[in-house]
């Protein structure tokens, strides 16, 4: 049985109530959740600028379906689900772009490191970015946002057992990567 207790030291904001379809409420949801959604996306995509772009796309998609959202589910969990799908789509597009860039840069020196991403250049963070996005997402939701396995399962629309196995696989992979260094 998967554990559902909160990791220590995590304080989740009290759930706010929103009315589906209300533009004012959606704006409030945006203000309340933007930074956390951006945080999740930064771990899933290659850089901060892409994460910001994906965050905006997440809210665009969410707004299109805002009338269909049911208040029984957590609005932020719903946004996380959309954000993860946006990040997965972005990774696919990125793979296509990389092939084109490789041809374009052929014979030229690569650009220097972007100062904004130097902070993200730790071994652990880089190893995490190389995980499958669904594994990275459960790590962030669990270890940064403090969601329980049950909440993650509800947010992602998967069984709790799947969340537990994704977490275990992700931790095992990170341990292996860090152990090799």
């Amino acid at each position, binding site marked *: 049985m998967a554990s559902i207790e909160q*990791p*220590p030291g995590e304080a989740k904001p009290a759930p706010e109530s929103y009315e589906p379809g209300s533009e004012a409420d959606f*704006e409030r949801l*945006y*203000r309340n959740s*933007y*930074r956390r959604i*951006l*945080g999740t996306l*930064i*771990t899933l995509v290659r850089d901060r600028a892409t994460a*910001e772009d994906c965050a*905006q796309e997440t*809210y*665009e998609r969410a*707004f*299109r379906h805002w009338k269909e959202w049911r208040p029984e589910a957590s609005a932020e969990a719903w946004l996380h689900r959309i954000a993860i799908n946006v990040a997965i*789509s972005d990774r696919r*597009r990125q793979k296509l772009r990389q092939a084109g860039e490789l041809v374009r840069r052929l014979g030229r020196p690569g650009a220097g490191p972007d100062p904004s991403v130097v*902070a*993200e250049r*730790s071994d*652990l*963070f880089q190893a*995490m970015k190389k995980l499958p996005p669904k594994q990275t997402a459960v*790590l*962030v939701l669990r*270890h*940064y946002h403090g969601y329980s396995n049950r909440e993650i399962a509800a947010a992602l629309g998967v069984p709790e057992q799947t969340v537990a196995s994704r977490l275990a696989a992700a*931790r095992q992979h*990170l*341990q292996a990567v*860090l152990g090799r260094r």
Partner: protein
Amino acid sequence: MSDIERQLEVELHRVLDPISATPIPPRRSAGNRTAARTVLGGAGAALTLKLLTGVAVAAAAVTVAGAATTGSINPVIWGQQVSQHVADCKAKLTDGQHGIGDCVSDFSNQHGQAVASDARHHGNPSGSANGHGNNPNANDHAKNKNKGRSTQTKGASNGQDPTDPPVHATVTLSPQP
């Protein structure tokens, strides 16, 4: 909590906590999305690719068909040759006869076959090196057009040249009871 979990939390907080100090940008509405991104990204990219492929295939088909008919890949020459033959066909029409479709169709058939055979004689069994005379579809289309159609039907509909005078087909009406 295991070491890796502790390390992970420390690392996530180190990287992601500074985000809480950043200002929240205004929400982008769907209307602000750039046209380029719509075309180049996601489903737009797939649709654009399909559309471009379709256009390229259609252009190639037109080129091959035109080259097969006229023996040249220059579209200006296609136009001149076709105009010439249309004029010839019109001149051949006798009084009271309408429709030059068959005449023009015969020209495309004969010329396509001649070019294909020419290509084979020049040591190109497929006849494809010069890009003309080997389009079986172009010829077949012309052949198929003739199948099962009477001259009158053709003259009254598809085979009619746009420059022809209006066709007034003879219609026999049986008297209503």
